[in-house]
């Protein structure tokens, strides 16, 4: 480990781990470019949000304790998701109001935890990225990143430093996509109505690529765009920033791919 480099624990997030590991590697590349040493604790699974938002406080606390333990000692903890980073930063400290020791540990972790893109710009001072990407992109502001962590200008700033990127804002770019975790399967018809409106706006923007910072929202929007036969590629913003867009976009087959 190089002297003086901050040690970052990557909170992979359960969705990136399972569905799209390339987002994790894009995050590692960007963090290394920002002068950090990256480690990935194996004792991490999920931040606990599915349990938290289902009212299951006991499992939420258990998973929070597990995460707090797994990320002890890192200078920073970074997640390629505003939702998971928001869970750790904003909600973990409220889980242990009856346990001062755990609460202090939760607050300590919360203070070291960041969403990836805002960490790169706000903590590491990154203003440009070295990436080649050509095309019109539109950016969806995922709710937790936007409203819990204030992530809005940061990804746009870094995207703007890529010469070939033309950012075209969709109407209502800061409105929910209808994912909402378990909401989208508990109330599928309402979720469908919301994501239909969202994909209308995406298609009307004329962008060839949709980007966002949260894989749950991205899977929701990609799935709807594909069901509607839209020709819009969907990627996590880290893939474009890290110049790692060789793998197929979300929900797309490898070119000429067959089993």
């Amino acid at each position, binding site marked *: 480990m190089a002297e003086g480099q901050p040690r970052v624990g990557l909170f992979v997030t359960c969705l990136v781990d399972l569905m799209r590991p390339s987002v994790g590697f894009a995050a590692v590349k960007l963090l290394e470019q920002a002068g950090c040493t990256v480690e990935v604790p194996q004792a991490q699974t999920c931040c606990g949000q599915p349990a938290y938002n289902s009212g299951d406080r006991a499992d939420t606390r258990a998973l929070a304790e597990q995460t707090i333990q797994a990320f002890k000692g890192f200078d920073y903890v970074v997640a390629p998701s505003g939702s998971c980073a928001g869970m750790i930063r904003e909600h973990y400290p409220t889980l242990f109001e009856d346990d001062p020791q755990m609460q202090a540990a939760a607050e300590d972790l919360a203070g070291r935890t960041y969403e990836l893109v805002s960490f790169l710009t706000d903590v590491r001072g990154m203003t440009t990225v070295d990436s080649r990407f050509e095309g019109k992109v539109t950016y969806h502001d995922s709710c937790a990143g936007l409203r819990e962590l204030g992530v809005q200008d940061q990804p746009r700033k870094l995207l703007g430093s890529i010469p070939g990127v033309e950012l075209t804002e969709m109407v209502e770019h800061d409105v*929910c996509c209808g994912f909402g975790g378990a909401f989208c399967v508990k109330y599928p018809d309402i979720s469908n109505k919301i994501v239909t409106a969202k994909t209308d706006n995406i298609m009307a923007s004329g962008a060839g690529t949709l980007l966002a910072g949260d894989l749950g929202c991205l899977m929701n929007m990609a799935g709807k765009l594909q069901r509607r036969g839209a020709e819009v590629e969907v990627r996590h913003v880290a893939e474009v920033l890290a110049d790692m867009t060789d793998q197929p976009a979300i929900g797309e087959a490898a070119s000429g791919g*067959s089993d």
Partner: protein
Amino acid sequence: MQSTSHAFKDNARAALANQTLQKAMKHVKSGFIDKRAKARARLPEFDALRDEARDIKNHTLANLDFYLERYEEKVTASGGEVHWTATAEDAVKAVLDICRRVDAKVVTKGKSMISEEIALNQAMEDAGLDVVETDLGEYIIQLRKEPPSHIIAPAVHLTKEQVEADFRHHHQELPSERQLSEPVQLVAEARQMLRRRFLEADVGITGANFLVAETGTSIIVTNEGNGDLTQTLPRVHIVVASLEKVVPNLEDATTILRVLARSATGQEFSSYTTLSTGPRRPEDLDGPEEYHVILLDNGRSNMLGGDFQDMLRCIRCGACMNHCPVYHAVGGHAYGWVYPGPMGSVLTPNLIGVDEAGHLPNASTFCGRCEAVCPMRIPLPKMMRHWREREFERHLSPPAVRIGLGLWAFLARRPKLYHFVTGWQARLLARFGRARGRFDALPLARGWTKHRDFPAPEGKTFQQLWAERQESQAKGKSAS
């Protein structure tokens, strides 16, 4: 009113399939959101005022008994009477008793959500009274025998074509060839029909946006002036209000007024802000002979000191529903009771029970936009989550959800086992999904694939690939 909140899913499905409703709901999005944003932008101290407004209400709620008693003293001193009512039934009875005593025939009403909450119109009609709603939106839904679908725009679920049809049906005495397709014509006709009723009324009933402890004053805000005619022309003015409407003094009321209209309609102030203090004094030229305040609890005092106290700060501006993607999708009636949208999803289970209204706090994506725009900074998502916790504790959540969550949590709490299981899950899904890159149907994810494709995973999990990378780097190092 009879709740259908337990049937929220069916209500929502019907609302989504109702094309006329969907057309009308577009106005909510376009009408309210931009106007609020502009009003906020014009007032640099807007967010500071929100803090001040929140603090005023917090202080009042912490000293509620004191301010309510002060308020009653002042009302009594000004010649009015406060009727303390614990339940909806008590409040209805208090109103009916007054109407009976003064031998009322016709009752006019300004817009009041509390009167909806206690189902006052039905009770008065059953008692033989001729009840006339005088707010345009309320007048329209009264003709249609519908509840309001929004707390400040009760008929927002209707198109102007529907209103025209209703007016033609109910106003048969007017010439059938009249022009009625423009909103201004609809308003003129409603005004023409209502003018006579204002003069006939024996009792006028209004709600209250504020009750001022310092002066014993009730304040209403309206845009049509109907509230003034309702409360000044009849012999008797009855205010129906819930107890959390009280504020310490006029200064506090005006501070909150500065955020109220801006949050609601984007106006700096409503067209009318009307203050009523007691009945007509000997030197007054007009005003009612009697002034009554029906002060309603109906479960609110149980919210004090608990998880839901912050909800009592609500000033009923409607900003939360105006900005809610779920409300936009299904409209207010789907929520099944008086209060729709995020504020309703928190308040309704408090008032009619979580067994009946359990869906409401679940039907939210937790996008947080409601909290972001709430002028009183009420943490609405947090309180919806409190309801979900209570439902989970009481085993009211659906069994499939509990079983799925239990299984997932069992794995997620055991990282080694979790990584083993997710490892083969990812590979299996990737293998089946590789050809197309996605699935259009998945046996355990029908709620998802009914409406959208599900992407295939890339193959190995990040943890597997990371372990491989670490291993090859270590080998590379030892070989060199």
